[in-house]
């Protein structure tokens, strides 16, 4: 029984962390129409940033500034934000293809850098030397995981509330205006490039938060955690849940993560031994099929965006 409960706690923690990243993507894609092909770079920047800033000094790489944990987490988010700013400032003035390609490229380069630069992130072995906060008083057991889940859920709730407020604010209206008709927005004196950049960086900072929490949860991050697969999973979550709808984003995260873990379990349990090598390929095909079929048959997702007419003009 305790096994099942602790598994549920584990599952919910990971799904909630991913849901935060999906919310970040929803701000970019769902609300502003920005294609981010490198979600995992900003997620990874958050994870590496947090563990580097909060970890203990290591002999072989620069890790370990032993900062107070919340500061380390904010620092990780800042690293993700800076990375997004650099990519965004170069590409957001251009046709949308450039952002798609550059963000995809930044993810490839980031993973490549972390795999090779041992002095920076420990290389292929991953980043060691981080200790989870309050480990001394809470231990490593079930109690710790339960409390950590509560923290993650609070972060998810805070992100959700923040985005809901943002989306219904005049700024949220502006994002949708730019998404729908950039020229019309410009004719009203708005600066699409600047506002896109704000949305892109904010979304990436949220992904950085998710990455920071992910790194904290495992107290470890390696290039294996920042493969492009994660980007595809996070997109599938948003597309299935419903782009433009924050509730949908969270729902999609839980559904797809459940489907992913279940299919992985089912393949390892029931597939013949010689097919095990291909279990990964089968899972990727499933993710690809989910993305393509949703776009073809229900592009608005399970919970479509609610289109609101601003009432202020009527009053």
């Amino acid at each position, binding site marked *: 029984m305790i096994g099942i409960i602790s598994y549920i706690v584990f599952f919910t923690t990971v799904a909630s962390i991913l849901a935060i990243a999906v919310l970040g993507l929803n701000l970019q894609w769902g609300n502003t129409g920005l294609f981010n092909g490198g979600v995992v770079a900003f997620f990874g920047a958050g994870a590496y940033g947090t563990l580097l800033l909060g970890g203990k000094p290591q002999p072989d790489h620069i890790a370990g500034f032993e900062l107070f944990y919340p500061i380390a987490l904010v620092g990780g988010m800042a690293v993700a934000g800076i990375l997004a700013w650099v990519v965004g400032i170069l590409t957001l003035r251009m046709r949308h293809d450039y952002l798609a390609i550059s963000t995809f490229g930044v993810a490839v380069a980031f993973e490549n850098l972390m795999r090779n630069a041992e002095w920076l992130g420990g290389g292929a072995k991953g980043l060691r030397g981080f200790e989870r906060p309050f480990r001394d008083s809470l231990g490593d057991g079930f109690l710790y995981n339960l409390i950590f889940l509560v923290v993650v859920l609070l972060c998810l709730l805070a992100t959700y509330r923040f985005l809901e407020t943002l989306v219904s604010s005049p700024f949220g209206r502006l994002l949708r205006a730019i998404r729908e008709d950039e020229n019309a927005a410009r004719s009203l004196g708005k600066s699409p490039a600047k506002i896109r950049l704000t949305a892109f960086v904010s979304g990436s900072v949220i992904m950085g938060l998710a990455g920071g929490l992910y790194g904290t949860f495992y107290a470890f991050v390696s290039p294996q955690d920042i493969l492009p697969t994660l980007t595809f999973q996070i997109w599938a979550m948003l597309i299935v849940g419903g782009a433009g709808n924050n509730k949908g984003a969270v729902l999609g995260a839980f559904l797809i993560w459940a489907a992913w873990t279940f299919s992985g379990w089912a393949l390892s349990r029931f597939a013949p031994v010689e097919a095990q090598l291909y279990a990964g390929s089968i899972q*990727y*095909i499933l993710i690809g099929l989910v993305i393509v079929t949703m776009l073809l048959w229900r592009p608005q997702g399970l919970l479509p965006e609610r289109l609101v007419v601003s009432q202020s003009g009527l009053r």
Partner: protein
Amino acid sequence: MIQHLLDGILVGSILSLGAAGLTMVMHILKFANFSHAELLSIGAYVALVFDKIFKVTMPLMANEIGSLSMTWALILSIIVSMVFTGASAVVFDRLIFRRIRAKGEELSMVFASFGLALIVRNLIGLIFGLSTKLYSKDIVFATVLSRDPLLVVKLDQLAAFSITLVLMVVIHIVLSRTTFGYSLRAVGENPELAQVNGINLEKTIISVWIIGGGLAAVAGVFYGLTNQINPMIGRDLVLPVFAATIVGGIGSVYGALLGGVIVGLASNLALSILPSGYSPSVPFIIILAVLLFRPNGLFGEARA
């Protein structure tokens, strides 16, 4: 150094073929097609299958041409593969991209192309296995061009390069001398106006997919011939090919041809200063440099 230059040009010309097709698609359909590199992969594997078939059914064809490891069977397979890959590009358009276009969700096509790339890449892995394959098991020795400075090249590479050059000339003639070339440009500039002038939009789109797929097939086979064939060809080439289109300016076929060579050269020269582990990052660095100094590429024009 000169060796790096030579290798860069040889590899780059393969990227050029991939990028030329990709930039045409991006010019006409206005989306970044992340599944284009999978067409190279399809091309390489289709040629592998037909190469085997031709060698078994027509033993005479299995003889090597001169001192190349290329056989007549492989040359014939390349042609079959061009047709097959062009056809599969059209099928992908029919099944996926055209339907999404019809909904008016142009941006969603980028997502769809990623999804498609995942499906194709992993299906190839399932069908052909994850291990690497080769067209010819013979060990190909490099020919020494000069001893000082030491300069070696595989004859296969030179043959592939010559065929690529011929194809580039063909592309040039088609673009500049045929009605199709004009209609391609017209559709890219203004689809509505082009249709008013009697250009069949759907036909132009189909032709672009066929040409793009055909060029991708040749690029894929040559890449397989000079490196090796594995299901990850698409994953490894997607960024270099995109970098080539950005260097040339999205939409410019000539730019893409030159861009491929520049990316090939830059990647090889970078290896003389960077540890080889960093080579996957080089295309991204090139993209950043272009965006910083010449955002619309060498031949591109500013577009919203």
